[in-house]
């Protein structure tokens, strides 16, 4: 392998390592501590769940722009049902159900009707966002309307010796495990990548493309709903736009992960590194008193650099 091809595959990883070393040197007492790192895993847990499940649709070469709106919708659905006096478990189940239904709608539009994912999910993003306003009446639901058992979940943790592993982190790890098994260890996952490689070839090879894509969008909808509930639990409230910011960051994480995989495919472990990169960057920059707007510039620059380093190999082959 040439230097360029090494850089293509490992550029992002090197950048990641350089960032960790940089923060570790500048924040020697606080950055590489178990407590801080566990804290970061909690901070990125919602983004992680959305990004992991986004990886499923992106493996097929599809997109889902509606994940943020679905997350917001799931949060307000649960909170509205809390207000209506539903038991916590039932309200959560209903919110997750709403996510699956929303994902199913995306799946039908993309896979059955054949609308481009960008267009279809741009449309449903607006629809779900609007529904979140309708359900919540545009208000933030908070205070006594949110049961303590629900908001307490995000503050709970598994005590392991001196360490507290946050409950939200455990949820993200569970979702990671499920998505990893589905994508890497099952025929279903391999077929998704086959669709992503060449949808016509996959179809001709007898892959039931329509059904597989439908199911993939359901995964993403369910993931978005889980993340929306995690968010609502963490802020002990729900408003109709609170999950919206998750969408672009999730796509960015999958892209960052793609630059680390051999074939440039979305792999869920690569996505995990993308999520951790963004999370550690936020954490380190805050601790170093860096302006929040500089952080935005850095994140964008890093994504472009990561993708650019992935193109190096292409240039050297020309």
């Amino acid at each position, binding site marked *: 392998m040439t230097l360029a091809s090494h850089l293509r595959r490992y550029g992002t990883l090197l950048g990641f390592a350089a960032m960790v070393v940089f923060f570790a040197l500048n924040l020697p007492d606080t950055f590489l501590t178990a407590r801080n790192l566990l804290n970061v895993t909690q901070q990125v847990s919602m983004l992680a769940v959305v990004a992991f499940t986004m990886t499923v649709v992106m493996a097929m070469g599809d997109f889902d722009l509606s994940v943020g709106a679905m997350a917001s919708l799931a949060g307000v659905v649960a909170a509205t049902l809390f207000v209506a006096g539903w038991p916590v478990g039932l309200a959560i189940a209903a919110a997750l159900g709403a996510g699956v239904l929303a994902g199913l709608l995306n799946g039908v539009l993309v896979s059955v009707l054949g609308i481009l994912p960008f267009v279809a999910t741009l449309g449903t993003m607006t629809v779900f966002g609007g529904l979140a306003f309708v359900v919540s009446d545009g208000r933030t639901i908070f205070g006594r309307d949110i049961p303590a058992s629900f908001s307490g979940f995000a503050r709970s943790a598994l005590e392991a010796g001196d360490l507290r592993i946050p409950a939200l982190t455990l949820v993200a790890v569970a979702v990671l495990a499920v998505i990893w098994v589905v994508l890497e260890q099952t025929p279903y996952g391999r077929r998704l990548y086959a669709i992503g490689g060449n949808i016509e070839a996959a179809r001709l090879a007898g892959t039931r493309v329509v059904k597989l894509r439908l199911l993939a969008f359901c995964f993403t909808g369910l993931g978005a709903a889980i993340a929306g509930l995690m968010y609502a639990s963490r802020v002990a409230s729900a408003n109709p736009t609170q999950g919206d910011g998750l969408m672009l960051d999730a796509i960015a994480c999958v892209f960052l992960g793609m630059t680390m995989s051999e074939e440039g495919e979305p792999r869920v472990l690569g996505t995990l590194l993308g999520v951790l990169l963004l999370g550690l960057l936020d954490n380190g920059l*805050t601790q170093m008193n860096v302006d929040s707007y*500089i952080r935005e510039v850095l994140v964008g620059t890093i994504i472009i650099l990561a993708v650019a380093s992935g193109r190096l190999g292409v240039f050297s082959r020309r």
Partner: protein
Amino acid sequence: MNVKSILIGAASMVLATAATAQERVAVITPYLAQPGTQFYIDGFEAAAEGRGWEVNVIDTAGDIAAVISRIEDAVTQNVDAIVINVDPAQVEAGLAMAADAGIPVVGMDAGMSPYVATNVTSNGYAMAAETAAYVVNRLNGQGNVVMFVFDPFPPVQIRGVIADAIFANTPDIEVIARVTPDVQDGGIADSRAQMEALLAANPEPGSISAVWAAWDQPALGALQAVEDAGRAGEGIVIVGMDANPQARDAIAAGGNFEASMAQDFEGIGAAAAEAVARLVSGETITAPVTYVPTRLITSANVAD
């Protein structure tokens, strides 16, 4: 250049900006882009500069969960104090961590919470008393008043309660309508429609003497209705609250819209810095809320 060298280059630039200082204070808000918030920050930063503090202003662009994350980071960084400009109930997870670490938290127009040493804000009760008293005095204690209120929103509800009390305490003032406008469109349009209906129902000149609004938008809607009905010359006194730019223009124009209340946003920032200074020096602040004086705005001082 590869990713690594660029990262290090960018990072070293960043490092150059991180100075060493004594007291470190993190100011965390999701609302920096909203008008008003910047004034709090300006007031705070000016006061902090005088004290030689190192202030880190963190904006999360509307993301409340990220506010929790940044509070956690500030605690990890072991800052000396944290200032928040967000409902404390929504970021309790982060505030609990600050409390565990013994780091004081000051609210800047944030809301009351056991985790917030003091919340610095304007006194809504006092603001309502000033404009309601202004109306009573202008009418010489006699006339019919239309009120625009919004009881579902607590900070506005308390304004209405005070105005109710002042009008009820004046025997010859009668509140002929207590309107809750639809605020979906910002509150001006529906307030105007409601005022038009009230003007139609009270056609006699002098049958409506004043409009007391709990915030500026309904006052502006009422002003439009009065002017369009050709009744601007009847001497109907209109007062609002918050003194937004549109209200100031109306007051400066010298028409029926006579008064509003201005909050001192920079003063709130400065008072928050004062509270931080007291907490950092080991004092305890007993008042859960610290009020910063507000000012009645009329044609006499609107140009200031």
